[in-house]
């Protein structure tokens, strides 16, 4: 982790270089204690993630005014993200001024304030990042505080717990878990009383980079920068010892031999990541059969072969194997994390694969987990049931690749897949997945507009918007919802494609043709004469640069961006092998 001093230098250097390659983002920071240092740490950390924060910092102790006054600077600033940092310190001060009856209401008052912000139309389309409350154990009641509803301990815990409920309820509210950071590193690390006295600052200089990182992790996740895949080495990473030398009885795993417990608990963690939708892969220098043996036969092995989406065990280099995994999964290297106990392998991978995250695992495997916890590698901005079966989908993809090899031509292969697609508008059932796709799709995404669930619900309710979602099933299984299109009227004759994105899992299956046929049909039904599409380049969506011309759209000569037009009249249905199921 960088020091505060490092972050300051990174920011200074980035500004000196004219902020080249950094995406501007408007962020507001509103706190009830001094926040200048946090502001600097946030801006420095933002640079590390490719953002240049245009940061509005409210005068401290103006939280209420900034949010509630319709003429406030905060409202005028119109930030994309609003960071709300109310301290346990001020809460404790307020608590101390109340009688017992008033103390009972301290948490509820704060909750009502946060809920009012979430409901305020001015902030409906914003992302509010609210830091939760690290506990201050004032020992006024000792442990008995757990039985006294007016105690500070009770109120802070209740507040944190109810904030979680609010965040479930309001799509524009995200919580930054400052309390979890304090649990990890301790109160005396988070807070430096001698510094607080002269500065009103409740975060120590040591804590600032971590707090800023946890906040920027959320911003990055909302903006689609996520880790989706974990690639694991085997020997001395997933189990103790070397399977090729020590054999299945000799490796350390489970409660028997050596420090097997460390590896079992590490595997339990990996399994939970798999369950929540992280793609788990293996890259190991081993014979394949030897490498798979523990997965098949070791009684204490927690991870099974079905948990592994792509299993690369051979004598190629790790770099080559990671590249192979990348080709099969079709995701960016910057969404991958690679764990290996060997510092030499780590260095080679880091040097040769730009963007991949390679943590410096500690030498002692007993320390792996606590170290990995400190990195917060898998922040996300959404979670849905569809995440859970992703591993199987990638394994099925490997089967499709096998089948494709048995056909002479692509058309016959596609026909043999027996593909079916359900076409539907946005509904309350598919809203989470639609929002998630807009947040996560980077490659097959023409304009890369990110939407929250609340945004999607608003689009669904707008009668002028044509909202379409597409699923894809075939004989191997259900890919779920894989494509999203949003069209908005430019005028009475012209529709504009605000969003067209597709999951890269279903590339080269004719889905683009099927989707375009549907678009034209809908446009015609609604009485439009032409459809305009636009390509906005990002560092990641080069694959769709020629998307519209390839589909027969004609470039619009006088537009500042890459815009293309398709006439509805005379449109020839595009050939594809997908059967449509209307919903």
């Amino acid at each position, binding site marked *: 982790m960088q020091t505060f*001093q490092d972050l300051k230098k990174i920011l*200074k250097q980035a500004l000196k270089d004219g902020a080249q390659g950094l995406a501007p983002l408007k962020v507001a920071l509103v706190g009830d204690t001094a926040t*200048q240092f946090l502001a600097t740490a946030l801006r420095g950390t933002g640079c590390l993630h490719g953002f240049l924060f245009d940061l509005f910092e409210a005068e401290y102790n103006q939280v209420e005014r900034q949010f509630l006054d319709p003429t406030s600077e905060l409202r005028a600033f119109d930030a994309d993200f609003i960071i709300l940092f109310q301290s346990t310190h001020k809460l404790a001060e307020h608590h101390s001024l109340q009688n017992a009856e008033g103390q009972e209401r301290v948490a509820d008052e704060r909750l009502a304030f946060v809920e009012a912000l979430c409901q305020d139309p001015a902030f409906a389309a914003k992302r509010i990042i609210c830091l939760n409350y690290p506990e201050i154990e004032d020992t006024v009641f000792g442990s008995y505080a757990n039985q006294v509803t007016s105690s500070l301990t009770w109120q802070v815990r209740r507040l944190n717990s109810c904030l979680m409920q609010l965040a479930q309820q309001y799509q524009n509210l995200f919580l930054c878990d400052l309390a979890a950071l304090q649990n990890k590193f301790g109160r005396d690390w988070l807070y430096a*009383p001698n510094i607080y*006295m*002269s500065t009103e600052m409740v975060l120590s*200089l*040591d804590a600032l980079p971590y707090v800023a990182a946890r906040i920027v992790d959320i911003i990055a996740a909302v903006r689609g920068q996520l880790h989706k895949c974990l690639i694991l080495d085997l020997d001395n990473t997933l189990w103790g010892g070397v399977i090729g030398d020590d054999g299945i009885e000799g490796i350390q795993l489970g409660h028997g031999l050596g420090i097997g417990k460390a590896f079992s608990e590490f595997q339990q963690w990996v399994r939970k990541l798999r369950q929540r939708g992280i793609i788990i892969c293996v890259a190991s220098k081993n014979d394949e059969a030897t490498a798979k043996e523990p997965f098949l036969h070791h009684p204490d092995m927690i991870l099974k072969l079905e948990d592994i989406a792509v299993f690369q065990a051979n004598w190629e280099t790790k770099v080559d194997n990671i590249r192979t995994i990348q080709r099969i999964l079709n995701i960016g290297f910057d969404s991958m994390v690679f764990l290996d106990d060997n510092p030499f392998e780590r260095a080679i991978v880091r040097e040769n694969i730009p963007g991949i995250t390679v943590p410096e695992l500690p030498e002692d495997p007993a320390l792996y987990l606590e170290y990995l916890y400190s990195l917060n590698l898998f922040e996300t901005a959404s979670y849905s049931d569809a995440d859970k079966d992703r591993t199987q989908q990638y394994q099925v993809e490997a089967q499709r690749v096998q089948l494709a090899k048995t056909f002479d031509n692509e058309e016959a292969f596609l026909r043999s897949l027996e593909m079916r697609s359900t076409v539907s508008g946005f509904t309350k059932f598919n809203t989470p997945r639609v929002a998630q796709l807009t947040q996560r799709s980077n490659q097959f995404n023409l304009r890369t507009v990110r939407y929250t669930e609340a945004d999607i619900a608003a689009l669904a309710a707008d009668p002028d918007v044509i909202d379409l979602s597409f699923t894809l099933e075939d004989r191997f299984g259900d890919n779920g919802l894989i494509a999203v299109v949003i069209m908005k009227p430019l005028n009475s004759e012209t529709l504009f494609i605000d969003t067209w994105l597709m999951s890269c899992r279903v590339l080269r299956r004719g889905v683009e043709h099927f989707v375009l046929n549907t678009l034209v049909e809908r446009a015609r039904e609604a009485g439009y004469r032409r459809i305009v599409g636009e390509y906005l380049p990002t560092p990641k969506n080069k694959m769709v640069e020629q998307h519209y011309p390839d589909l027969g759209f004609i470039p619009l000569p006088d537009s500042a961006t890459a815009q293309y037009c398709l006439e509805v009249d005379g449109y020839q249905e595009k050939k594809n092998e997908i059967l449509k199921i209307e919903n």
Partner: protein
Amino acid sequence: MERIEIFEKLNEIFVDVLDLDEVELTDATTADDIEEWDSLSHVQLVVAIEKAFGVKFTALEIMKWKNVGELVDSIAQKL
């Protein structure tokens, strides 16, 4: 540690934290003499000095030093 050694170490810390080319601190040096030394970087200096010397300053000390000489006195007392 002699005062002169404390000064040498402080010079290094000031250069690093304030991003200066060089500095020659004396007993009489104050924040007015160094442009980069403001109330914010003061906090960074305090924390960096605490770490470098392995000492902790009291809240009152942090607020009360009138010049570098008094800061060096505080450090010398704790070593």
